[in-house]
Structures are given as structure tokens and as C-alpha cells.
């Protein structure tokens, strides 16, 4: 009890210095948490991927399509349960800054994505309406879309203005699922192309392949690709997660830079905290010597300094951690570029671990010095 009281009183002896250190710690822990959340957001697509879904695309590139008739052959591979056609539409809603992903998909899309929850009535309304579309909850909330709204989308890959009627809004099974996207009928796209650009019709961007068992993924992927070896359009089949990570890999230098910055922030605050503790301990050398003269042992002094460092870091860390979730929400509203921007439990634990590490690392040297101070020399020290 006495030790705790002394720790508390020492920690707030120089209020301004302690408050500034606390503020620095809180900001550093907050920045670390936000940067980690940015990295997590980068990987959100891959994290949300299912092990029972494969992506089959043209082996040359994503921009090169596959013939429609591949679908039936893929369906015939052992272990395949469903095949969904998917084309990236890449249209613009009102103006370019309103970017959101749009996919032309076959009607069985939602059978392959059970994590997207869509009321049965809305699903059947969509299936019945050739121009119908389904939007995710995140997208609907962002633009205020409601069932029945007509969305004019200006095509970039597929010219013209396309009108879609919102027939349903799907929710994610949990908050990590990406719901900032829109899907519409692949058949609608293809039928239109047959009329306007017949040479582009019957071409599929990629096939999303459902499989019966996660353990069969490699065998099924090999089986699919073997079907089209030496054809005009060879395929590349990989797991959905590997496919998503391929996108992340295009920007992995940026992700690596963000990661490095997040650790640099912690290193900087460690230096600040170590300096604060060293200054405090140096100023109190004569007090430590006096305590030693009175009979207090080296361990007491070491615990006194480590305790003070832990208290400051615990308070600064707690403020930083508490501010992370609201700041992330505000950041998401302000800069709506990530479909999922959520602070994970691991991030909160990592923040706490960083604060504890800073506390202990900053206290090591001053605690050791205080424990070793020679009484006679310490009493001569001027605080």
C-alpha cells in the first residue's frame, strides 16, 4: 500500500511532464492501433475468403476472359458443387469519386456466399427481375439506397448507362464481411452484349467454384486447370484467399511501410518514456540514497521506478486504447476507402502489449542504477 502510494505520488510529482508523457503515449498507442487496423483492412478481403471457394480465371491475366462453355466442364470436375460466373463491371455511380465494386454474377451467387444474408423474398424478387440488383448494407447506408431505387450506372468497361433496380439489401453474417458492393444478373449483361457488342458476349471474367471439402482444394484446382491445358484459354485456379492475397501483393510495399511506421511510432515513444524515467530517477538520486540509508533495499527502489513507469504507461495506454475504436469509426466515416475498417481484439491486445513493453523497457536502466546507487555518493548528488 505504502509502495503504491509512493509510486502514485512520484508519478505525478511533475504534473506537466507526466501529462505530456501521458499524451504522447496515448497518441502513440492510438496511432499504432490505427495503423494496424489499416493493415488489417488491407487484408480484409483475404480474411473473409472461404476455404471452400476457388477462383478460376484466365492464366494470362485477369483482363483476359474465359469462354462461357467452360462452366459446364468445370461443373463436371469431381468435388465441385457449384459454379458462379462473375464479371467485374467497373461502372461509375453519378461521378467517379463514388466508386464501389459491381459484379455481374449468375443467379446462384448467394448459394455460394452463405455469409451474405439476404431475405428469401428479396432474393426471389431479384431473380425475377432481369434488371434487378442487390446491394450490400454498407453500400446502402453510404448512399441511402433503398429497395425499389433505380441506380443509373455509367459503364466504363461496358459502355452506356445501365439502369438497375435495387431488389434487395444483404447483410454480412458478422462485421468483418464486406458489404460495400453490388451484384446484378450476369445474364442481363450478356444478353445486352449479344445485341450491342456480340464479340464480347459469352465471355466470363472468372468462375467462382464451390467445392465439397476444403481438403480437396488443391486436387480440384489441379483438375480444373488440367481440363484446359494447351487450349486457347488456359486457366489458373487458386483458392479465394490466394486470389485476394494476389491483389494485396500488388501493394505489399505500402503495407510493409505502414507496418514499419507503426513500430517506429512505438520506438519513438519508448525513447521519450525512457528519457522521462531517466530524468526522474536522476533527479531523485539523493532520495533513493536516503531510502537506502534508512534500510530500504535495492529491490524496493527498483520496484518503485518500474511501478512508476508502469503506472504512466498503463494510463497513457488505456487512454490510447479507449480512443482507438471511436477514432477508427470517425476515420471510416471521413475516409471511406476501406470496405471493412474494424479494430480487432488482437489490435487492442497488441496496443496493451506495446504499452507494457515500453513501460518495462523504459524503466530497466534507471531502476538498475537506482538499485545500485552507493549511499555515500547518492547523498552527495544534487537533485
Amino acid at each position: 500500500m505504502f509502495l503504491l502510494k509512493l509510486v502514485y505520488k512520484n508519478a505525478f510529482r511533475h504534473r506537466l511532464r507526466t501529462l505530456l508523457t501521458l499524451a504522447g503515449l496515448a497518441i502513440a498507442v492510438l496511432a499504432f492501433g490505427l495503423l494496424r487496423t489499416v493493415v488489417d483492412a488491407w487484408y480484409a478481403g483475404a480474411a473473409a475468403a472461404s476455404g471452400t471457394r476457388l477462383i478460376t480465371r484466365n492464366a494470362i491475366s485477369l483482363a483476359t476472359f474465359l469462354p462461357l462453355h467452360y462452366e459446364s466442364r468445370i461443373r463436371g470436375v469431381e468435388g465441385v458443387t457449384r459454379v458462379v460466373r462473375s464479371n467485374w463491371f467497373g461502372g461509375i455511380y453519378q461521378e467517379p469519386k463514388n466508386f464501389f465494386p459491381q459484379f455481374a454474377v449468375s443467379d446462384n451467387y448467394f448459394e455460394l456466399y452463405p455469409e451474405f444474408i439476404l431475405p428469401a423474398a428479396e432474393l426471389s424478387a431479384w431473380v425475377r427481375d432481369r434488371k434487378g440488383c442487390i446491394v450490400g448494407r454498407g453500400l446502402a447506408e453510404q448512399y441511402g439506397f433503398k429497395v425499389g431505387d433505380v441506380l443509373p450506372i455509367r459503364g466504363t468497361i461496358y459502355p452506356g448507362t445501365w439502369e438497375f433496380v435495387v431488389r434487395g439489401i444483404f447483410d454480412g453474417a458478422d462485421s468483418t464481411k464486406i458489404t460495400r458492393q453490388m451484384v446484378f444478373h450476369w445474364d442481363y449483361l450478356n444478353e445486352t452484349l449479344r445485341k450491342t457488342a456480340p464479340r464480347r458476349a459469352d465471355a466470363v471474367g472468372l468462375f467462382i467454384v464451390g467445392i465439397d471439402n476444403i481438403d480437396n482444394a488443391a486436387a480440384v484446382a489441379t483438375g480444373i486447370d488440367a481440363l484446359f491445358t494447351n487450349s486457347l484459354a488456359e486457366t489458373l485456379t487458386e483458392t479465394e484467399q490466394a486470389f485476394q492475397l494476389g491483389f494485396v501483393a500488388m501493394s505489399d510495399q505500402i503495407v510493409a511501410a505502414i507496418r514499419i511506421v507503426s513500430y517506429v511510432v512505438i520506438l519513438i515513444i519508448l525513447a521519450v518514456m525512457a528519457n522521462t524515467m531517466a530524468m526522474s530517477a536522476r533527479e531523485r538520486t539523493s532520495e533513493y540514497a536516503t531510502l537506502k540509508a534508512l534500510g530500504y533495499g535495492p529491490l524496493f527502489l527498483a520496484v518503485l521506478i518500474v511501478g512508476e513507469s508502469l503506472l504512466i504507461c498503463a494510463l497513457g495506454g488505456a487512454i490510447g486504447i479507449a480512443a482507438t475504436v471511436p477514432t477508427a469509426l470517425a476515420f471510416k466515416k471521413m475516409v471511406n476507402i476501406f470496405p471493412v475498417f474494424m479494430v480487432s481484439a488482437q489490435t487492442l491486445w497488441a496496443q496493451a502489449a506495446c504499452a507494457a513493453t515500453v513501460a518495462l523497457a523504459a524503466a530497466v536502466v534507471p531502476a538498475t542504477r537506482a538499485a545500485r546507487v552507493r549511499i555515500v555518493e547518492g547523498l552527495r548528488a544534487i537533485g
Partner: protein
Amino acid sequence: MSAPLVEIRHLAKSYVRGGQIVPVLADITLDINAGDFTALMGPSGSGKTTLLNLIAGIDKPDSGVLRVGGVDIAALGEAELADWRAANVGFVFQFYNLMPVLTAYENVELPLMLTGLSRTERRQRVELVLAAVGLADRMDHYPNELSGGQQQRVAIARAVVADPRIIVADEPTGDLDRHAAAEVLGMLRRLNEDLGKTIIMVTHDANAARAAKAMVHLEKGELLPA
């Protein structure tokens, strides 16, 4: 005749300064009996504070015998010496050396925190000694809210609260005005006369030394003949 409380035989101490060995005390032989009030006097650099530090167990001699209350304190390890100090020595420093974040009450309580006394017992003792030094009404004040003389009285209360066998005082009046110095010296004298405390005081002030019953003079690390 009973053995002296402090028994020093051929004590020597030197320090290393800038790579050179500087002798501070040489061949000191001295006895101090229980109940004595001894002033260690001498010019700056004579070794009087070093001798006091050795007797108080906060420094170690190079050679010689140093027994306090029959205990060879030079042979004790760090932890044993800390326990010995806590039980046997009360300190009064020139610049008081109070903890600035603790009140007068809490400063006086510091030595008692190392004992097995209950909170109530500690309170009784602290209040008693603070009343004895005339600071019963200042126990909740922090050191920076007290005058120099009052701070030194708090330090004296801290030195006696655990009832040690010896009180060592290093220039206890060195930072005080004449009036406060007289108060502090009177208080030390009362501790010696009324409570029988053994006091060893370092001073270079002849007026302060007159409060003691005996004087020991040092010069260049050696005792001068009485």
C-alpha cells in the same frame, strides 16, 4: 566497565579519485560509549563525514575493526547491513533529505514501514515524536510548506521514531539560521540527556560542537590528541 557502544581499532579508508588512491582516514582508534554525545570536528577534507558514514554503516572501511554494539558491521553483507541500519541507526542530514512527495507524518513513518508494527502502533509513535519536536500541528504539511528549522525537526523525528541505538547527524545545523540551529541543537541535547540516546554529530562549527559532551578532532584523516 561495560564495552563501548562504538569500538574502532586501526580503521583506514581511502577513495580512488581520477585513478589515484586518496587516503581519507588512517589508523583511527576510537571508543564511543552508549549515552555519549560526541562531536566530530575538523576542517573540510579531514575525514569526519567519512568516519561518521563508516560508523553509520553506509560505507565500508578498507581495514581495521569497526564494531557497533558488539557487531562487526564491516563484515555484514549489503542486505544485513540495511537491516542493521534500520534497527540501530537514526540519520539527520545537513539538507534534511526528506521525501518531498510525503507529508511530515509520512516522512517520519518511513523507518517504521520496515518494522512489523501495526498501523495504529505506527500512528501512535509518529504522533508522539512529532509532538516531541513541536510539530504536532504540522504533520500533514509537505516539506516545501515547512521552514528549514521545521524540516530539520521532522528529520530528527524520523531519526528517533524507530528508537535506534545511535543517532548520526552530519552538519545538522549547516543549513540553518542561528535561531533554528539553536533549536535543533537543543533538541539533540534533550534526546541525549532525557532519553539517553547516543549521538555522533559531525560539525565544523565550534558553537554547535559545544552542545556535545565530548569532542573528537580530525585533521588530514588522523585523530588529533585530546
